[in-house]
């Protein structure tokens, strides 16, 4: 058990208050505490962040690329979800 590589963690950084955490890369760490510290040293050396999330990579579940057609294409035809779909008279404001 103990003689193996440290688990891989995905790192997410909030670059400033008001913005989402964004995936920036990964690193190795033995536990969550260490993963946060390592993320601080590896990914925020130039003041890139104000907050860090780490998630063990094995806990990330992803959609499969081959399902992309079925998952994402049906939304393409539903243009009525976008405001530009609708005609409004010239000169109208605040809409």
């Amino acid at each position, binding site marked *: 058990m*103990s*003689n193996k*590589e440290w688990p*891989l963690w995905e790192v997410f950084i909030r670059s400033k208050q008001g913005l989402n955490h964004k995936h920036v890369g990964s690193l190795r760490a*033995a*536990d969550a505490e260490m993963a946060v510290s390592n993320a601080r040293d590896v990914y925020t050396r*130039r003041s890139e962040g104000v907050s860090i999330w780490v998630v063990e990579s094995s806990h990330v579940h992803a959609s499969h690329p*081959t399902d992309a057609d079925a998952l994402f294409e049906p939304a393409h035809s539903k243009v009525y979800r976008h405001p530009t779909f609708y005609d409004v008279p010239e000169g109208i404001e605040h809409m």
Partner: protein
Amino acid sequence: MKELDINELERRFQEKIDKDIKIEPNDWMPDNYRQTLIRQISQHAHSEIVGMLPEGNWITRAPNLRRKAVLLAKVQDEAGHGLYLYSATETLGADREDTIDDLHSGKAKYSSIFNYPTLSWADMGAIGWLVDGAAIMNQVPLCRCSYGPYARAMVRVCKEESFHQRQGYEIMTTLANGTPEQKAMAQDALNRFWWPALMMFGPSDKDSKHTAQSMAWKIKRQTNDELRQQMVDITVPQAELIGLTVPDPDLKWNEERGHYDFGEINWDEFWNVVKGNGPCNKERVEARRKAKENGAWVREAANAYAAKQKMKKAS
């Protein structure tokens, strides 16, 4: 979902590449593309990590506190860059530890430049200016590489490296404007690092076995010789500006081509260093191997502690 035959998958893959659509980790990709990327990215990562050693060699001897801090920060960045790149290879299914073992066994290569010794403080200048200069030239086009995680890592690396070359040139400028001893030290460093820096772009196009396929896959965006020419054209005036002489008697501006003509690279030396016969090959790999070996008990202890904590939480 119906099974697509391999030809169709490859056709679609190449179509994406041609349209400049990035390939992401879980996307289908030809096995060769994957292997080429793993080879190239891990080589790149190893170069960063081995590259820490020749400069690390001077941290404790840096001539003042400012230079010491800068050098420390630079070598630290290289560790960071190695890490970003190993992360990119992990997205291709190559474990970092296996990748590193390939370096230690001699199976994987790294940039031959790091097998040259750093003999004086001026070498810190020459490395920043020439070696990082060449690296940046190599890397900027890679920010547009077809593989998403590699391209993103390169964007980060290039952004961070912009100070590396400047600090090197600053060291060279200070030395070139200093006492005769300092100027001689700078010239000597340029003499030793000029040719190895040009070799960093790899074998000549006619001898490069990977170039054509890598260009088609947009893993590589410019040929070795194109980049090398660019390096010479940009660097020669920088040397002249601070009064240093590029050690190449054949160097001459070619009005017609709009480029410098330069002398033939000693390819024997290049291949010899690649094969492991450079002045420091043995020492570099040995240092990395030792770091891993000496750290084994530390990594093991951290695992054991994490496991105990997990158990405690569960109970």
